[in-house]
């Protein structure tokens, strides 16, 4: 085991995959000389050079499209979008192009690219730099959507993402970048579509994504002291969705809370609830709870931002409400 920040874990995954496969190319704004706005590619430019670690102009649609062309012709580009909000600038390339090319070509072509991009509020970054875009991209068929929790997970899942032959949207959580985690010396790729039971429990299930896994574990710890046993599932990937693990857990506990930081309306929590509904309908003892970002743009002032972010307290309270 060793201690790493989450950002370092990202960087290690990039480094190891680039060392292993010279088709892997990193591009994005400030990824090269600066080593990434969140320091997730420090040292890679020096190690792999200008053609493999490329600072781009501010042209999100352009360089995302560029990466698609690279992916169609033999490379495995990893694109960094500095904030996941900028997916909206590149949305056509991501959703109308990358996601649909395999299908539109009848399987002739595929687009092995990864878009890495940070989500999450909590830094007073206001409405255009704080969003969590996983629901938006999950809505559109053709994209795999990864929402890793801790540093070991981010490393293992990023390796899988880079080796995957389809476009993968890989969401890192910006509030985790500087946090330290214990991680194994060697982290193997973690398969997509297999959720992780982060904590076993029997009274209620929480399905959580990204940093809300850690927050759910914290809430579970508190609740344990009150005699409530919470099962925490780290979803890992929204697409593909590990329906089985979730259903089995809910059948066992009879209660479900879903914690995901995208906006509530048409969000990830709504989807998971609706998706498993048929199969758990007769097992449920209470309505399904959602802990998401409320349907308002994210405010700048911490006085406004903190109360609305999905937090340990909000998870805790939602569970208490359903128990």
């Amino acid at each position, binding site marked *: 085991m060793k201690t790493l920040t989450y950002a370092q874990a990202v960087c290690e995954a990039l480094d190891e995959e680039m060392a292993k496969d010279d088709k892997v190319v990193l591009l994005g704004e400030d990824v090269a000389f600066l080593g990434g706005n969140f320091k997730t590619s420090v040292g890679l430019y020096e190690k792999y050079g200008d053609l493999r670690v490329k600072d781009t102009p501010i042209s999100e649609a352009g360089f995302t499209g560029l990466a698609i062309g690279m992916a169609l012709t033999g490379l495995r580009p990893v694109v960094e979008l500095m904030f996941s909000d900028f997916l909206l600038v590149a949305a056509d390339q991501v959703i109308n192009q990358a996601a649909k090319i395999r299908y539109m070509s009848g399987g002739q*072509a595929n687009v092995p690219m990864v878009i890495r991009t940070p989500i999450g509020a909590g830094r007073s970054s206001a409405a255009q730099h704080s969003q969590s875009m996983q629901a938006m991209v999950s809505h559109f068929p053709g994209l795999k959507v990864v929402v890793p929790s801790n540093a070991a997970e981010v490393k293992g899942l990023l390796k899988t993402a880079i080796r995957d032959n*389809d476009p993968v949207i890989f969401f890192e959580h910006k509030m985790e970048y500087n946090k330290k985690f214990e991680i194994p010396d060697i982290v193997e790729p973690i398969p997509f579509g297999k959720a992780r039971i982060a904590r076993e429990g029997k009274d209620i299930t929480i399905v959580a994504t990204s940093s809300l896994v850690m927050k759910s574990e914290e809430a579970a710890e508190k609740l344990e002291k009150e005699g409530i046993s919470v099962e925490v599932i780290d979803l890992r990937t929204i697409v593909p969705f590990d329906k089985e693990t979730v259903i089995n857990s809910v059948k066992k506990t009879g209660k479900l809370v879903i914690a995901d930081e995208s906006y509530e309306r048409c969000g990830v929590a709504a989807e998971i609830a609706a998706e498993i509904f048929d199969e758990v309908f007769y097992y449920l003892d209470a309505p399904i709870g959602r802990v998401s970002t409320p349907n308002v743009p994210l405010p700048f002032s911490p006085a406004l931002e903190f109360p609305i972010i999905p937090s340990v307290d909000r998870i805790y309270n939602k569970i208490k409400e359903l128990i």
Partner: protein
Amino acid sequence: MKVKEYSKKQLTEFYETMYRMRRFEEEVFEFYKQGLMPGLAHLYMGEEAIATGVCAALKNDDYIGSTHRGHGHLVARGADIKRMMAEILGKKDGYSKGKGGSMHIMALDKGILGANGIVGAEIPIATGAAFSIKYRGTDQVAISFFGEAASNQGTFHESLNMASAWKLPVVYIIENNLYGISVDIRDVANVVDIADRASAYGIPGVVVNGMDVTEVYETAKKAIDRAREGEGPTLIECKTYRWQGHHVGDPATYRARKDVDEKEKWMKKCPVKCLKEAAAIYKKISKKEFDQIEAKIEEEIQEAVQFAKENPYPDVQESYTDVFE
């Protein structure tokens, strides 16, 4: 037209390619008129010299980014017209198993990275292929075809900026047929020649007569050679005209508003006919040889039409495949 300096072989190839495009699309138009075609198709008729001239300067392993008006690019690359027609009819053995249709025919084996239904979206993708080439260090080149109206899309600017900053081996070909659907380019842009936009990127910009296959070929060849030698991108604007409506179902009545004879004037410059006449004048290809060429192509075309019509529709389960690996 400078046919004089060209070999018979080269001229024959030009003619065959253009004639094949023309006949191909006449049949596609027939499909539509007979109610056989699902959806629509955007015909390249009148613009054949462009794809023909450009692609004649390419090698087998070069790449092409194509558009909604992409039949010509495919034919010029020698794509299988049977599979093209099948695709246009939504049939099982179409290039995309019937999933793409006219606007999304991909022929990866011919370097065609895809037609595209989103105007301007293909430009960065073709540019990315050029990045790959540079990365691998081969002498391939990527071509990005698009219309004059697409040059108003942000992706045009972003792509040319990246390609010029990084000297990528890509040639941008503007097929300026004056209109984006009904919109006259002069009403939505303030430059006479779109090629002038090259100066915003410090690259060469050239205007050519897009009805003259030899002029297109020579200009493209120069730009392509330049790209192969690592000197970066060129922007070539080909002046041309779309004979038909924007798509098969568009009567295009809107075009007479500035000049009632506009279409007629352009049709006189028919690239297929002009080449034929010039080749005859210079006695490069005889009447009989032309007849043979046309008959041979006619046979191909009829075969393709029959193939496409008889080919079955894809199995309904195919809706659910090819989303992921």
